[in-house]
């Protein structure tokens, strides 16, 4: 069981290492979108600070959608998804492994870029730390819930657009608590409450999303 999970994760990381262009797109998209805002709304630090949390979080959501469209689609096309579904191990583990691999490829780099982008928005150190913490807790939610959408839209024409419509509403709690945590610390109210709620949301996603994804994969492949 453990070996199966590790194989799924290692396989996806190996594939990502062989095709750097694919996943770097999402990272660059994130950087681009976030960097457009200071250019668009002017350089007033007060104003930038006020929108920083929201902008970074919305950009992270959109960037995740870019990379999620491919999460299962490539494997579906070349038949390896079927082989993985036929494995003696439960499909839930496959869904979990894919989500973990997606987070390592997509979410982790985001955490490293976020502090730099936070500085563009004149965020104080304290707020940058909270931003990184909120992304650290929140991006796994994006990978987990996104997996559901990727599995549901598998093999559909125009699946990418449908994925956006399906998944963005599910992301709303993560967006509210994540951006709220940054705003909270800026307003001097602290971010603990928001971060714990975000943590609870991640825990819930971790428990539920792999099962739903597994069921969706079964349906999509049939």
């Amino acid at each position, binding site marked *: 069981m453990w070996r199966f999970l590790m*194989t799924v994760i290692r396989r996806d990381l190996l594939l990502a290492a062989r095709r750097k262009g694919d996943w770097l797109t999402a990272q660059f998209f994130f950087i681009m979108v976030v960097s457009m805002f200071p250019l668009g709304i002017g350089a007033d630090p007060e104003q930038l600070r006020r929108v920083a949390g929201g902008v970074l979080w919305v950009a992270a959501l959109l960037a995740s959608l870019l990379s999620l469209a491919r999460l299962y689609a490539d494997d579906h096309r070349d038949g*390896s998804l079927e082989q993985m579904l036929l494995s003696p191990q439960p499909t839930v583990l496959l869904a979990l492994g894919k989500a973990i691999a997606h987070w390592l490829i997509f979410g982790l780099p985001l955490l490293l870029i976020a502090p730099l982008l936070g500085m563009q928005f004149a965020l104080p150190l304290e707020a940058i730390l909270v931003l990184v913490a909120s992304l650290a807790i929140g991006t796994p939610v994006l990978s987990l819930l996104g997996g559901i959408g990727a599995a549901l839209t598998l093999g559909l024409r125009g699946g990418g657009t449908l994925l956006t419509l399906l998944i963005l509403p599910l992301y709303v709690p993560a967006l509210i608590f994540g951006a709220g945590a940054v705003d909270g610390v800026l307003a001097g109210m602290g971010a603990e409450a928001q971060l714990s709620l975000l943590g609870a949301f991640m825990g819930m996603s971790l428990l539920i999303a792999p099962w739903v994804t597994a069921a969706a994969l079964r349906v999509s492949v049939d």
Partner: protein
Amino acid sequence: MQLSTHDLACQRGDRRLFSGLEVCVRAGQLLLVQGGNGRGKTSFLRLLSGLGEPEAGEVRWNGVSIASAGEDYQQAMAYLAHANGVKDDLTPVENVQVQAGLRGQRVSCAEIEPVLVRMGLAACLDLPARVLSFGQRRRVALASLLLSGAALWILDEPLTGLDVRGVAEVEGLLREHVQGGGMVVMTTHQSLQLQGVEIVPLQIGPVMLGQMSLPTDVAERG
């Protein structure tokens, strides 16, 4: 060891592909599924593999429905579909290794290489599968099949893309597997040279015609 179907029916959209299908294969037999294009051969194999849900009836492994047999069945079965399940960015060795890992097996390069060489891939062990021809990728998939150690092989057109030598090699593998007490369910449009192998023919199509010839344990009604 026995794979049987009971009153199996399959529907694709509005079209009923077959119904009331009863067939039984035992160790040391090869079930040759025949029928024209679009008659439901692939759908039948997908039902056998557990990827598809039958409209009615069930597939049984050793008398237990495959849904209940679950892991036991998946451990004993290997399915080679139209799509090879070979990842373009991995080398043949890595592909086979990943496939084995997904089955929960660990195989070393030393075990994999002789099999790939036997499949005529000696020259491309370290090349990404992207540069291989269709037939060569098919050979990679066949190598994983060999290493899986599965007793039941479900093969959907295993000969497509193979050259004359490849076809002869696959015939050799089939003979070896079946005579060694394995089971094979396969479709092909080519004629096979399988002397000494007990072949159970099955004609599949919307109208089931009683075409059974050989063993007594094979029954089919229309």
